[in-house]
């Protein structure tokens, strides 16, 4: 649905060439929610602008819905919806009029009906006659989401969809994105909210002018940190650690002493489901008092920061 080949965008600033996007190769499947993460200034918004045909690539190629960027831009723009960084509404016009303008520009057959549908869905119908300038940030963001969807595009570019939203409004948008996913829409999601990315995205890409990694959140965790089992013990001693280290399939053991002689063993394994029973058996055989056994799940934040710091180094 979205494909890029060595996509580049360079800008000239003060006689210097700034590489905002430098050789991006990525494929986003139809119906996928694809997270695009990166620090400020990484080139995420530039990438979105390239793919939505707002700006032209310097080098490389890209396709959106089998239409080539740079050659069929008008058709691409008719098939994508974009939620820009700022809502960019017409403050003096009513909510309804704001959306009707865009429905007309997108060539929506029943502009009024479609506007009503989305205003009702986003619980803004009662405020349809109010000037958009009187809306709160959250309401403006909802309006911007509605604007991106009026023409029922198969591809959506969402740039920070829940920024400036309170938790309740953010949840509405999250649930909305989940429902869009259920409709088979392809969603390209730029966000700094790693929990949001972890929850919503089928795959994520970490990007900083170049692609640092792309995979499912779980696969990225495993690639970077492997799989780890944590055994919580009422009494921890070196003998127990040695027993676990002696097992042939154990890659690494980290000892984390706690209070009052308790502690944890963090054990790196290749297949915890198959190997945990043997570990538990070995420890029990040594007289260990096992309190809890769980898999250590690194957060997406750990993944992201690890990749960014590696790249910085």
């Amino acid at each position: 649905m979205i494909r890029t080949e060595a996509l580049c965008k360079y800008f000239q600033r003060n006689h210097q060439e700034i590489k905002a996007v430098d050789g991006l190769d990525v494929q986003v499947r139809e119906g996928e929610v694809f997270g695009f993460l990166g620090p400020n200034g990484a080139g995420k918004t530039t990438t979105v602008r390239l793919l939505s045909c707002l700006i032209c690539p310097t080098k490389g190629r890209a396709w959106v819905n089998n239409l080539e960027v740079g050659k069929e831009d008008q058709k691409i723009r008719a098939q994508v919806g974009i939620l820009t960084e700022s809502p960019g509404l017409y403050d003096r016009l009513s909510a309804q009029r704001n959306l009707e303008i865009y429905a007309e520009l997108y060539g929506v057959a029943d502009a009024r009906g479609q506007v009503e549908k989305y205003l009702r869905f986003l619980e803004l119908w009662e405020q349809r006659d109010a000037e958009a300038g009187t809306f709160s940030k959250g309401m403006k963001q909802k309006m911007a989401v509605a604007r991106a969807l009026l023409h029922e595009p198969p591809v959506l570019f969402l740039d920070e969809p829940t920024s400036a939203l309170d938790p309740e409004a953010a949840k509405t948008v999250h649930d909305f994105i989940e429902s869009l996913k259920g409709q088979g829409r392809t969603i390209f999601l730029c966000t700094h909210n790693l929990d949001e990315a972890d929850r919503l995205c089928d795959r994520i890409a970490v990007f900083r002018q170049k692609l640092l990694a792309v995979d499912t959140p779980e696969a990225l965790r495993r690639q970077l940190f492997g799989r780890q089992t944590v055994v919580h013990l009422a009494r921890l001693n070196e003998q127990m650690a040695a027993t676990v280290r002696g097992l042939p399939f154990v890659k690494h053991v980290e000892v984390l002493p706690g209070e009052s002689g308790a502690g944890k063993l963090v054990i790196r394994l290749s297949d915890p489901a198959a190997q945990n029973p043997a570990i538990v058996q070995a420890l029990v055989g040594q007289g260990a008092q096992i309190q809890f056994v769980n898999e250590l799940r690194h957060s997406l934040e750990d993944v992201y920061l690890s990749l960014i710091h590696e790249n910085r180094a």
Partner: protein
Amino acid sequence: MKPIRTIMAKEWAEVMRNKLVFYMVALLPLLLTAIPVVMLYIMGRVPASESDSQELAGMLQNPIFAGMTPVEALQSAMASSYLVLFLMMPLLVPVTIAAYSIVGEKLARSLEPLLATPITTTQLLLGKGLAAALPGIVMAWFSYGVFLIFARFFSASDRVFRVFVNPMWLVAMFVLAPLLTVLAVGFGIIVSSRVNDPRAAEQLGALLILPLMILFIGPLTGFIMLNSTTFLLAAAVVALLDVVVVYLGVKLFQRETILTRWK
């Protein structure tokens, strides 16, 4: 055509709701029409003073005023001044609308979602340009029509009234005025691309009336004679300027330029 109409309707809806712009667009033509109407009335009714009569005596030596009464000569002599007032409308009204339209969108950051729609740059530029230009030229022609109605009654004679519909006036109003409108819109776009305050854009755009002052001051100094030939020449110059300004405006109104350089 539909996208162009949508943009125009959007622009006008915003102008109607922006009191500052609305009153500027509505009151300026009113004022610029009222001044010559009132002047024409006063000149036709208030007797000349002693000093005015002496000045007039000198003026009546001019063959242009041959056979005219002092009142007729006075009313005819002021005609070119009135014309300059009418030519201000197709300059100032579009510049005001264009300034608030484009700079307003910059400040509201609403250009990006607009550019993300299937609308072409030509359609967008035409929509915004026509939305700014049409009120200016329509106001100018409407005001001219209103002036002519009053002039029919306030002119001292048919000879004076015919001055207001002579070739010079017709060339100025129907050839030069539309070209000035195009100049105003193009200039407004160029200025708005660099400025972030609509009032600053409006004030810079108002500089366009400075060349117009040549038409006002020129006849007084005797360097320029105002006639249809002068206005045709002026129209030719403005047409050339239009080409330059429209070219620059179109180059500045490209999506990439707006998103990356309009800050």
